[in-house]
């Protein structure tokens, strides 16, 4: 790994580390490490815009200075957080059990080949080479975000779709890693950040599940999830969807923590991750109202004012990246080509409900129940979720079910009404979000808590968890 790439990864980690530690958003060391990397990747993706607006060149030196400065500023946030760090990095919270080793070995087997394919192959998906990587490649080559892609190429051709206008997170990461690799060596194609993001999210999810359930059960859940061919394929095929799913799921998990603990830091971190999800795929803004709704339901009775303020603040914060990218940057700073049609939607007058029903049927047939994409992971989720509901009939983890169902329903409406959204691509890759939540839900159910308690009792340990928020 080159020195420049190592510096970028380290700086991004530190940027997130200071921020997440200040908010006390993680409840154990592994979770903090994963969450810090995710937050760092997200926050640092704003840096190319800062350079552009201060008229600095999109080049290696300004980028490194910017990353170094952000990392240094972030470290200032660690003041007064030493006791918290000591507590969540305590050996009891970090020590691995023997039973985790086979699972870790299997995940390493999958991640190794995924990392190799990410690094070795150039960018291949059509959507990437005419979208984020096209934007990034020319920004690096021409040292500006307003490259000839926007000023010369797109206005001169008749056929182009919306890929160059995809939300900017993926393109910005590509810019940073292409600059750091200088277009040479094993990481010449830039996209190794995707592997880092997958590992960071995997670590965060596993740490969260491991805290809610016994490590044996957490390992079982993550392994079932890992055996989803389509989810695995996009750990090395660069697109916007894996990053979007990771940010979105992190937002949901942190919001769930907030609903359980009422801690302010969890709420702020959750809002940040939802905003980052909107910074990664534009349509995510349509799913954010679910978060506001859950906040309202949770606190409306006890504190109506606080409920409305938080629900509104979360939605407005998520609206900022959406408005900035689509209206300030693309329609203001960069002149959109005259023949670009972004985010157009249509109304359906006749047979609305039969068309909507047909959309959901197709979504189920083409994506949800297609075992070529997910092997057993969807069916295992449905079976275990049903078993949990039959056996326990309680509200444990209910907000996560609301997320899963709500996201699915909104995808149907999106596909029906928004031009360009489709089942074969938009929903197939958008389903990653739902799949990640399915396995987080299973880890939150009474069924898995009962199994965990049974295992802990068997081994003679206390089942009480020491939570620090």
């Amino acid at each position: 790994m080159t020195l420049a790439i190592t510096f970028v990864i380290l700086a991004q980690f530190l940027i997130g580390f200071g921020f997440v530690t200040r908010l006390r958003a993680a409840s154990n060391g592994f979770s903090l490490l994963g969450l810090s990397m995710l937050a760092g990747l997200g926050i640092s993706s704003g840096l190319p815009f800062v350079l552009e607006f201060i008229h600095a060149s999109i080049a290696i030196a300004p980028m490194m200075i910017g990353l170094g400065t952000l990392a240094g500023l972030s470290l200032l946030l660690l003041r007064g957080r030493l006791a918290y760090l000591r507590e969540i990095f305590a050996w009891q919270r970090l020590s691995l059990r023997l039973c985790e080793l086979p699972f870790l070995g299997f995940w390493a087997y999958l991640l190794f080949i995924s990392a190799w394919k990410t690094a070795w192959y150039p960018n291949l998906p059509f959507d990437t080479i005419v979208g984020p990587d096209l934007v990034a490649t020319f920004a690096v080559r021409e040292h500006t975000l307003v490259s000839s892609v926007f000023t010369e190429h797109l206005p001169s051709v008749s056929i182009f779709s919306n890929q160059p206008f995809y939300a900017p997170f993926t393109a910005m990461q590509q810019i940073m890693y292409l600059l750091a690799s200088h277009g040479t060596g094993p990481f010449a194609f830039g996209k190794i950040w995707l592997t880092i993001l997958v590992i960071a999210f995997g670590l965060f999810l596993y740490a969260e599940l491991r805290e809610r359930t016994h490590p044996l059960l957490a390992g079982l859940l993550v392994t079932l999830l890992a055996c989803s061919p389509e989810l695995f394929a996009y750990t090395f095929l660069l697109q916007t969807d894996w990053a979007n799913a990771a940010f979105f799921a992190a937002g949901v998990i942190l919001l769930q923590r907030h609903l359980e603990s009422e801690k302010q830091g969890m709420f702020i971190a959750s809002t940040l991750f939802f905003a980052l999800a909107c910074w990664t795929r534009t349509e995510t803004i349509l799913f954010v109202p679910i978060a506001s709704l859950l906040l309202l339901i949770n606190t409306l009775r006890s504190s109506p004012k606080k409920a409305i303020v938080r629900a509104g603040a979360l939605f407005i914060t998520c609206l900022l990246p959406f408005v900035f990218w689509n209206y300030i940057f693309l329609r203001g700073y960069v002149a959109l080509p005259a023949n670009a049609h972004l985010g157009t939607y249509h109304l359906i007058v006749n047979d609305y409900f039969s068309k909507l029903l047909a959309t959901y049927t197709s979504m189920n047939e083409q994506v949800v129940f297609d075992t070529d994409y997910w092997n057993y992971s969807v069916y295992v989720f449905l079976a275990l979720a049903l078993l949990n509901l039959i056996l326990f009939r309680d509200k444990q983890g209910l907000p996560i079910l609301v997320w899963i169902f709500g996201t699915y329903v909104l995808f149907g409406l999106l596909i029906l009404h928004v031009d360009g959204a489709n089942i074969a691509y938009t929903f197939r890759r958008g389903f990653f979000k739902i799949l990640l939540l399915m396995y987080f839900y299973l880890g939150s159910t009474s069924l898995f808590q009962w199994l965990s308690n049974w295992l802990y009792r068997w081994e003679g340990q206390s089942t009480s968890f020491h939570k620090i928020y």
Partner: protein
Amino acid sequence: MTSSNNTSVDPKERRRFWTVQIIYLAASSLILLVILYLPRNQNWLTTTVERFYTQHYTLGKQIDIATRRREGYEPAYAYIELIQQRCQPNDYFLIPPQQYLIRNAYQAGKSTGYAWTYPSVLYYYLGKSVHLLDMTAPDSLLQRATHTFWALDNKIYLLTFKDHNRPLVMGEFKKYDPHFFAYTPQQAKVYYQSKP
């Protein structure tokens, strides 16, 4: 558990601790094996993932960028290299209508659906090594075209425009819809099998 604590742990307790750990290890290994031996998981691991490891075994040591691009971009790379070798930055490459290529050289592009002729794909590969011209450009601009692709006997050749061939090529290209685009090989096949 710290080492100082370890020294004070009752040997029986320690034995029990390790027995439990080893039972868990056996259980997790068994669970993992059961998951991996489920038919679909086994099939995925022994075909797709195994194939990736074979790729790593055969290609892993080659880190030359051109080799990696050739391996990744496959059919497109030959055409891109041809344009880069034969055209100069001040030349104009006329992108032929995709329908023309599908109709006249379907065999050559059936696996790609000619997605490489999408203007932004060509721009991604070629950058400013040549000016790209779209068939929707005004006639005055089309007259500047210096090169294009021409299909003959199901093969594609790089053609240099001359006074004598320009009207013939332009006339042929204008028979096809410049706005049509088959993004996938399946869409290209549907067009190929439709009536001319």
